[in-house]
């Protein structure tokens, strides 16, 4: 019973992280219509930087987080150039697959360069708030609470930003129609760069939060990137609420499936793989049943014949 409840708690915490990564995918997707397959790498940048500043250099926590945000802003800016310049040039429709994966390779290997302090080992960042508290029989670590509360605050702040500010609305307008957005005086390129920066900060902060729970290393973004992607798609690309829903769903599912295969089926090994299979199977099922995700926002789902592609060479 205890193991079951513990797995629910960790599922919620991990789910909050997935939700943040999923939101990161969404932001870039909405302005560019590409899936940034280097999204997970922002998690590693965030986790490693904050670990370095806070634990190794002993900076005070708020300052370390602030400086990490600064690093993430720069990272988002650079990744945008790295990804978007070749994608714009590319003649093929799948250019983004190559440029984003190449960007992921570049980031991962930059992080392990000998002159940087990270190396390829896994580090163990300390929790932001140490200790546990008891709720009846169950011990809950404060870090889990911090993760969920901080993640939810971030989501709320982002929602307010998107719906209450000109820049937020400009992102939505750009998402809907880039050319017309530019006719309104919106600098679309700058909005796209901004969306990468915003996405990097949110996803990187997810790394700051998850580091103390899972450890931090240069390759941690691979798995989190995939899970965040699954959460984004299951929730519905382009929908922030969907991302949160998808994140918690996937986090809980993975955690409970892991518990099921290890405690109920009593598997000695491979339970993690089966938990992953469960997650991906849910992704496949959701995509098959409702390609727009569970919380559908219907981006570009309009029937083709009714809204013909704007013919480039038309009059």
């Amino acid at each position, binding site marked *: 019973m205890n193991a079951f409840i513990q797995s629910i708690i960790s599922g919620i915490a991990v789910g909050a992280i997935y939700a943040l990564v999923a939101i990161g995918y969404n932001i870039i997707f909405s302005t560019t219509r590409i899936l940034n397959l280097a999204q997970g790498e922002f998690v590693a940048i965030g986790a490693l930087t904050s670990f370095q500043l806070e634990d190794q250099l002993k900076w005070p926590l708020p300052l370390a987080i602030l400086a990490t945000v600064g690093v993430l802003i720069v990272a988002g800016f650079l990744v945008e150039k790295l990804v978007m310049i070749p994608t714009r040039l590319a003649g093929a429709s799948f250019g983004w697959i190559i440029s984003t994966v190449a960007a992921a390779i570049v980031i991962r290997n930059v992080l392990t360069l000998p002159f940087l302090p990270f190396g390829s080992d896994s580090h163990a960042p300390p929790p932001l708030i140490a200790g546990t508290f008891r709720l009846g029989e169950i011990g809950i670590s404060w870090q889990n609470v911090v993760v969920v509360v901080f993640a939810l605050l971030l989501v709320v702040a982002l929602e307010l930003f998107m719906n209450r500010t000109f820049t937020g609305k400009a992102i*939505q307008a750009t998402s809907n129609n880039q050319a017309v957005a530019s006719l309104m005086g919106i600098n679309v390129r700058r909005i796209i760069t901004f969306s990468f920066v915003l996405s990097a900060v949110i996803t990187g902060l997810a790394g700051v939060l998850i580091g103390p729970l899972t450890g931090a290393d240069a390759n941690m973004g691979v798995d989190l990137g995939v899970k965040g992607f699954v959460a984004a798609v299951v929730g519905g690309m382009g929908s922030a609420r969907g991302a949160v829903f998808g994140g918690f769903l996937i986090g809980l599912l993975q955690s409970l499936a892991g518990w099921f295969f290890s405690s109920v089926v009593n598997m000695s090994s491979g339970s993690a793989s089966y938990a992953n299979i469960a997650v991906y199977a849910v992704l496949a099922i959701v995509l098959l049943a409702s390609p727009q995700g569970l919380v559908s926002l219907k981006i570009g789902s309009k029937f083709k014949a009714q809204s013909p592609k704007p013919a480039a060479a*038309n009059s």
Partner: protein
Amino acid sequence: MLEIKNLTVAYGDVTALRDVSLEVNQGEAVVIIGANGAGKTTTLKTISGLLKPRAGQIIFKNRDITGLPPHEIARAGIAHVPEGRQVFTNLTVIDNLAMGGYLWRNDKKKYNSVFDKVLSLFPRLAERRNQLAGTLSGGEQQMVAIGRAMMTCPSLLILDEPSLGLAPLMVKEVFNYLQKLHQEEGLTVLLVEQVASVALKLSDRGYVLENGRLALSGTSAELSTNPRIRELYLGVGSS
């Protein structure tokens, strides 16, 4: 106000516009007519910066704006109402207008005064303020598109086929609004239109594009009586 000199525009190998020159004076309404593929939309898109010309010059208020990105041309005072309305379907009517007022985002006072003025011009939009623009009818969407363009406080409004896909009654209403903007507000208008009869009624002067070249120009009265125009674009004559 706007002067286009020897403009040539191409899509890859296909030259859409060849050596076109035209001008629009302060306070005028000018129409460009021509068949599909004649280069009308290309002309407008090049003026507003969505397309880069291969050769030629665009001068707006004595400033060379050739090749500037669209957001800077919008800032310079040209508002483009695109073909097929293209409202932001995922935003409400109000937020569509707000995007038109993006330029005034740091000037609350100016923004509010422009906003009030546009709503008074289009009272229908005030009724629908919180509705998603994608759920409006075609005519209402056209008003959103025009209202949104007016939010940029343009000195020149360019419109691409405002009648496209609208029922006859709706076409009339939209053109009434344009008439009002032009005559009562003194707005300078450059218009592309298939429905030449309605467009020539609104405009002072007109240009005729054929196959990417300027074929004819003159006052609207001259054009409406020109036998060639009557035959080709007004359908009067031999049939």
